[in-house]
C-alpha cells in the first residue's frame, strides 16, 4: 500500500526535475549578442556586397600590411600633398634662391616629438632622395605608405589602425575596406589635434 509520504516524495522528485529543466532554460542565453557572435556559423570571406558599394578606388593603394590576411586599401598621399614632387627643387644640391625655405616651407610648425629634443626634418625626410621618407634604420618609405614610418614609433597605434580600432574607414562598412592614412587627421609636423569649439550644443534634459 502506498502511503501519503511516498506519494509526496514522488511529487517532490517530479517538481525538482521540472525546476532543473526550467533552470537550464533560463541559464542558456542563446539569443544574447555574445553567443550570437560565437555561434555565427557562416565565415564570411569579406563584407557582404550590398549593390550600392561602388567605391572610387582611383586615389587609393593597397596597403603593405594585412589584417587577418585580408588586404585593405589606404588613401593616397602624394596627390594631395602641396609641393610634391620634392625633387622639383631638391635635386641633390643646395637650392640657391633667396629665402626659399621661408617661401616654400614657412608655414610648417614643427611640434612633433619631445619638447627638449624635437624631431628634425631629416628624422623622417630622406636626405638624398627627397621624394621619399626614411626610418631611423634607413629604410626608404613611399609617401603613400607613410603609416609605415609613423608606426615605427607609434607601433601600438599602428596595430590598432591595421585592425580598425584607430583611424577612420572611408564611407562604407561593407565591400572592400578603405581607410584613411594617418596624415588625414594628424598634421605630421604637429600631430596633436587642436582645441576648438564644438559644432553645436545640446539643450538641458527636460524629460
Amino acid at each position: 500500500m502506498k502511503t501519503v509520504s511516498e506519494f509526496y516524495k514522488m511529487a517532490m522528485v517530479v517538481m525538482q526535475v521540472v525546476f532543473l529543466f526550467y533552470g537550464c532554460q533560463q541559464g542558456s542565453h542563446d539569443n544574447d549578442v555574445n553567443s550570437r557572435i560565437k555561434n555565427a556559423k557562416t565565415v564570411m570571406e569579406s563584407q557582404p556586397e550590398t549593390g550600392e558599394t561602388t567605391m572610387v578606388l582611383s586615389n587609393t593603394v593597397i596597403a603593405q600590411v594585412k589584417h587577418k590576411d585580408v588586404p585593405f586599401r589606404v588613401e593616397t598621399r602624394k596627390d594631395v600633398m602641396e609641393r610634391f614632387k620634392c625633387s622639383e627643387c631638391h635635386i641633390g644640391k643646395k637650392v640657391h634662391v633667396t629665402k626659399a625655405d621661408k617661401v616654400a616651407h614657412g608655414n610648417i610648425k614643427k611640434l612633433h616629438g619631445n619638447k627638449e629634443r624635437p624631431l628634425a626634418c631629416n628624422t623622417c625626410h630622406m636626405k638624398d632622395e627627397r621624394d621619399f621618407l626614411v626610418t631611423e634604420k634607413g629604410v626608404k618609405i613611399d609617401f603613400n605608405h607613410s603609416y609605415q614610418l609613423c608606426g615605427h614609433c607609434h607601433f601600438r597605434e599602428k596595430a590598432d589602425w591595421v585592425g580598425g580600432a584607430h583611424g577612420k574607414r572611408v564611407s562604407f562598412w561593407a565591400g572592400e575596406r578603405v581607410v584613411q592614412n594617418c596624415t588625414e587627421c594628424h598634421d605630421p609636423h604637429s600631430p596633436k589635434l587642436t582645441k576648438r569649439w564644438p559644432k553645436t550644443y545640446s539643450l538641458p534634459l527636460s524629460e
Partner: protein
Amino acid sequence: MMSSKYIQEEFSDIIDDIFDKKTGRRSFLKGMAGLAAAGSSLTLAGCSNNSPFSEENILRLKEYFKGNFTLMSQEDKNATIKRLERLAKIKDGLDLKISSKGPIPNVLFGFALNVSRCEGFMDCVQACVDENNIDRKTKTQCIRVFEIEHGEMNVQSGNGKYFHEVPVDNHFYMGVQCFQCENAPCIKACPTKATWREDDGIVVVDYNWCIGCRYCQAACPYWGRRFNWNDPYIPAEELTRKQHYLGNRIRPKGTMEKCTFCIQRTRTGRLPACVEICPTGSRVFGNLLDPKSEIRFVLENKKVFRMKEDLGTDPKFWYFVD
C-alpha cells in the same frame, strides 16, 4: 472639375483596397457612410485642397487605412512608398526617394565608441540631425555627448550641455544614443507593436503605427528615444531626400523617433552619418558576425564595456579605451 463617374470609380477602388474585396454599386453606397466619418477627421488634419475628392485626400485616405509594416507584403510596401512620395510632391513639391530595403542576411550591426579618443567636438550630433531630418525648431538630437571628469564612471555626473572650447583637460567625453538592445525594454513596453527589432539588430519604429503614448521612452534606461512634439520643421535645402520607411523619413507629429544606426545608409553598405563625420575616428561600426570586421577587432583586442550592462538589456553598443 472631376466627373462624378471618375469619383465613383476612384472611391470604388479605395473601398476595394480597404476592405480587400470587390464592391458593387450598392455596397459602394454603404461604404460612403464610413468614408464620411473618416473624411471628417481628414478635413480636421488640414487639407490644402478643399475638394474632398482631390488626389491628396484620396492618397491620405489610403494611407490612413494601411497596415503595420511588419504585416505588409512587398506590393503593399511599394504602394505606400509611392503614396508617400506623391504626397510629398503634392504638398511641398519635394522629390523624395523612400526605400523599404530589408535587412542584409548574415549581418548584425554593432557599434563601438572610443572614450579615450573622443574630444567632444559634437560633429556627430550635427551630422545626425542633418542626415535624419530631425526637427530644427525644438532642437531635438538623437546623440548626447557628456563631458565627464576623469575618475568618474557615472554618466549622470557628466555635463550634457557644455558649450566651450574642447577638449577640457582632465575630462573625457562619452556619447550616448540608442544602443539597439538585443533585449530591448522599449519593445516590450509598446502597446501597439509599433516598434520591433529587425534581423540585423536595428530597433525600428513604424511611425504610422505609433500612437505616441511614450511608454517606450519611459521604459528605455538610456534616454534613447525622442518624441515629436511638432510637425518637424526642416528647411527644404537641408532636407535629406534619400529616405527609408523605418529611418529618416519625416515623422508625423506625436510619434516617437530614435537612432536607427542610419538605416537608410547602413543597409546600402554605407557608414552611419556620425561615424563618417567623426573627426577623431572614435566611432567604429560594422558587422558583428564577420570575424574580420573592425568591430570584432575592437571587441577582441580592446578593453570594452557596455552601459548599465547589469540591466540585461544586451546593447549592441560598446565603449572602449585605448
